[in-house]
């Protein structure tokens, strides 16, 4: 799965996610990536793209829940994203990660797996990339 979230000069956010899904999947299975609110969501305050065990992201409505916590409950992006990805989803038996960005430019990239391919680029134009958990 791959994904991106962006904040433009006007202060608008967007999110996108694309995936080949689950190895060896059957029966026309669709995961969270294509489900708005589960693996992909954006509103005026927050944008999220997820990657992980899709069934759990769907049940948790992960991306929307993160944004709802930010937009409605006024939680910090970091706390909202970490709570959903590293607490709620593992508590259900799932795993994975997400990237999240809020309208003030705060970035969160929680994950509970060995690694997550991830990158970010801000005002200085310097691309930053990390793969493993301790990077």
């Amino acid at each position, binding site marked *: *799965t*791959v*994904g*991106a*979230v*962006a*904040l*433009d*000069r*006007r*202060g*608008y956010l*967007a*999110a*996108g996610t*694309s*995936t*080949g*899904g*689950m*190895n*060896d*999947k*059957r029966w*026309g299975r669709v995961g969270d*990536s*294509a*489900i*708005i609110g589960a693996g*992909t969501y*954006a*509103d005026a*305050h*927050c*944008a999220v*793209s997820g*990657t*992980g*065990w*899709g069934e759990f992201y769907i049940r948790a409505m992960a991306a929307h829940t993160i944004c709802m916590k930010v937009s409605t409950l006024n939680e910090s992006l970091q706390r909202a994203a970490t709570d959903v990805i590293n607490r709620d989803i593992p508590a259900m038996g799932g795993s*994975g*990660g997400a*990237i*999240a*960005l809020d*309208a003030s*430019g705060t970035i969160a*990239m929680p994950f509970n797996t*060995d690694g*997550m*391919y*991830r*990158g*970010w*680029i*801000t*005002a200085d134009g310097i*691309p*930053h990339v990390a*793969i493993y958990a301790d990077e």
Partner: protein
Amino acid sequence: MMQTATPILVIHGGAGVIKRDMNRAKEKAAHAALVRALQEGHALLKLGRPAIDAVMAAIVVLEDDPHFNAGKGSVFTHDGKNEMDAAVMEGDGLRAGAVAGVAQVKNPILLARAVMEYSPHVMLIGDGAEAFAKERGIASVDPSYFRTEERWQQRQRALKEDTGPTEHFG
């Protein structure tokens, strides 16, 4: 909202079992693709283009790179096919588009955007999504385009292990 925000782009290329002893060449190639995705998306933001354009540009780079489970390099289904899903959403206006189970669309993320912009629907699946792609002039490819040997071998191992589909996630 009329303000001047600092353009920011954040991307991911998937989470899961990523071993530290991963082939160095593979790690380097994946790293390079992520950098390219960031640069292409950020270049658009710097020009003042909307966030959705940057998201598209970054994801297309990753879909075209065989090291990630999306587009070229997607994992295989139990039946030996590649079936892809994608979605986009804009924060202003809450517009969204999604596609699922597409097998011939080169860049499913572009089709998801087309669904958002040119259809009255949010999600199209399978043959209907493919037909809409043709109608909109979204590039299609032979399904063999998506195949990589590594993904094929992953599917073969999964079949041998026969642990059931829920234990194999991408």
